[in-house]
């Protein structure tokens, strides 16, 4: 009887996790996460991604993490009067029913101090955390340099 209860418990737990994940993925869809291949000595890498908010309310991304990097920050590149600079954003708001694309020369994720040099066969997993507690794991791909400008 104890065995049956335990199986039942784990089944419920599994079902619950799936429901939570399904709800989260319905609320916000995160896709096309890619890291630009960089020289092996690079101490800062960059990632781009698309975030689609399917929900009826504003979703606020407040952190992104990946065990392969010491920290990850949201930045935006700006070119004004010929000077290129970056501004840090502590969070990123994705309005209801809209899509935000982080792309070269605009919003991006700065990945500090990679613990290993990344190659095109690597698939690191990032966790996107939102202000309402939603956490979504997303697998990144590594793109070769030539793909960056196309």
């Amino acid at each position: 009887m104890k065995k049956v209860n335990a199986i039942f418990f784990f089944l419920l737990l599994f079902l619950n996790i799936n429901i939570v994940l399904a709800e989260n993925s319905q609320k916000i869809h995160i896709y096309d996460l890619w890291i630009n291949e960089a020289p092996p000595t690079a101490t800062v890498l960059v990632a781009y991604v698309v975030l689609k908010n399917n929900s009826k309310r504003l979703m606020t991304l407040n952190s992104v993490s990946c065990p392969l990097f010491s920290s990850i920050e949201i930045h935006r590149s700006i070119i004004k009067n010929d000077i290129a600079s970056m501004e840090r954003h502590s969070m990123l708001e994705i309005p209801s029913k809209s899509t935000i694309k982080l792309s070269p020369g605009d919003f991006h994720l700065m990945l500090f101090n990679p613990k290993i040099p990344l190659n095109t066969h690597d698939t690191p997993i990032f966790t996107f955390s939102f202000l309402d507690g939603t956490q979504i794991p997303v697998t990144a791909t590594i793109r070769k340099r030539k793909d960056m400008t196309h």
Partner: protein
Amino acid sequence: MLTKLSNSKFLIPAMAFLVVLATGAGFYISLKQSQNRQERSEVSQGLFWPNPKQIKDFSSEDHNGNIFGSKQINGKWSFIFFGYTNCPDICPITMSVMVDVYRNLTTEFDDIQTIFVTVDPERDTKEKLSSYVNFFDKNFIGLNGEPENKNSLVRQIGIAYFSNKEKDNYLVDHSASIFVIDPKMRLIAKLSPPHQLEKIIDQFKNIKRFVDEKG
């Protein structure tokens, strides 16, 4: 009376002739000016002409530890970008375009070189610079910005950059343009972003044609 009549007889056609001549000359000058304007605009925005700055003698060290100075600039078309290796977005985007530009132009011209000058010499060691430029193209040249050297390319071209080094992982604000020095060591053009392969190729060919004609 007769003289007066004969004078007035010739005066009108003479005046008419002068008016036609002046109109024609005006039209011709205006046409030439318009052609010159069109020629200038076709060449490029950002062209430093008619008084391009002459690059003075300088001596630096490249990413391999070899001397790199005026001798290495003289006789070549140099594309120069000022950035830093910790820059994750704008610099790799620009360098990627410069790779495509370099590979495209070197199929047609043999006097092209691409130089990356770091504006973050404290962090961009020779090894890091070497790894960085080689990652993009083995023929690219990496130079230390040498801000303390008054004849360095940073100082001669007048590159502005700023960083707050008190922070960890500090960022550097820097010029986003690509600068072009001609084989006579003249700072000939500034190519402003957004950088696109086709645009730069067209700009360069127009600039080269223009400079070859003007001498």
